[in-house]
């Protein structure tokens, strides 16, 4: 079961733009742009979902995902996506990543972020009931 990180707009980016940029930079920890092939230009680590009414984005995350750290990792762009992060926390996360061969994703979640489960997301309107799922062999689809 996925968990979620709701990504607020920050640093001049919309929520959706920032979520995409964070996911992209998480991919670059394992495959820095300096070593990427052209076909990797759009690759990212986690997918995202968009709130149907607010337009807010949330990353669909896997807490125990193992991130392999490339020796050529450059965290500059990832750091820039967290302008509100205290410097001490930024330094600690940077050191953890750059001195490790692997990190679990849950180890590098900033304290400003809150992890939400599926139930929370459903209760807060992220996944409104799907007419498809009300179908049984005896009940037609409910049209919207």
């Amino acid at each position, binding site marked *: 079961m996925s968990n979620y990180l709701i990504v607020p707009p920050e640093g001049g980016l919309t929520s959706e733009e920032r979520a995409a940029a964070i996911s992209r930079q998480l991919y670059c920890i394992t495959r820095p742009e300096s070593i990427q092939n052209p076909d990797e230009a759009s690759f990212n680590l986690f997918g995202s979902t968009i709130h149907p009414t607010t337009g807010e984005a949330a990353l*669909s995350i896997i807490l125990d995902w193992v991130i392999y750290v490339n020796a050529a990792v450059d965290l500059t762009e990832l750091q820039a996506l967290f302008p509100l992060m205290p410097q001490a926390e930024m330094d600690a996360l940077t050191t953890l990543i750059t001195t490790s061969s692997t990190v679990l994703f849950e180890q590098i979640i900033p304290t400003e972020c809150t992890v939400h489960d599926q139930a929370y997301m459903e209760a807060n309107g992220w996944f409104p009931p799907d007419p498809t799922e009300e179908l049984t062999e005896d009940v*037609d689809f409910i049209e919207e």
Partner: protein
Amino acid sequence: MQGTAIIIGNMIGGITGGGGAILPTFFILGDGTIDGDNIIDESGKFLVSELAPAPSPSPTPPFTGLLDTYPGAAAGYSLRSLSSTYTGFAVKVQDNVGGATLDVGFNSNRELDTAAIAAYGGVNDVFVETWYDQSGNGNNATQATSANRPKIYDGTTGAVITENGKPTMEGNNAGWLKTSAFTNAQPTEYFVVTRVEATGNWQTFASIGTWSSPDNRQQLNVNNSNKLVVYAGANLVSSTVTTTGQYLLNITVNGSSSAFRSNGVVETTGNLGAGTGTGSDLHIMTYMRSLTSQLWRGNMQELVLFPSDQSSNRTDIETNINTFYSIY
């Protein structure tokens, strides 16, 4: 005419090419004498008794794929070769430990080159980033997000994942792929080789179109009662409960003449509605509306879409597929 004789040892006599035969190239590892059409040793024993050309090896019969016999598919995805004219790859794969992507084609049997994947993966899992379209239409299905890619190779076992002995890719409630937008207007027909995991969850193995404003989707599912459900504005539901296992599913989306078949048997017929499947990508192993909550839990080996009614070919296409996969 004469060919060439390379003799390691001593040779007595000359090559005459008796009877006007073409002399092939040959090698003799020992002393020998050319005697007419034969080569003999010192005791008169034949070393080589033919100077005529060696028989040619039997020519390999030309490959004929599913899409050679039944052309015109809108898209064809498979882990076997579907067409003699398709010269591209089967899949593009990547591990999650820092490897670059790798395009993987077919072996001499026209099946997925599993040795190449194993050599690439080693002890690491490998996932599918692109499932190439073999129809010639370029409708490749891709997944740019590492965490959402179907798994094809298990680094722990050191083997490509298989279903009934043939390579497959696992959805496993996480992996899915999608194309760029293409039209899949009715009548259209799907042929799918997939493993169903009958878990009592809603799952979608293919969807195309938009789900609202307007709802023109074509959506192929298993529902929470483990029944096959197809929707294209109206729905058809199988009469039987699907159990866990490998299936060949055929879905005809054609208004009031729609139907779907499972393992060569008609499950149900009726009106599926007018869903045109336009305005969105083809999603494989997920539902285009809720990409994180209605994922396919089984695996998939082949998906072919025809933009036309295939009633005259349907049984033969199923036979072609089943002959390869031995599903039923």
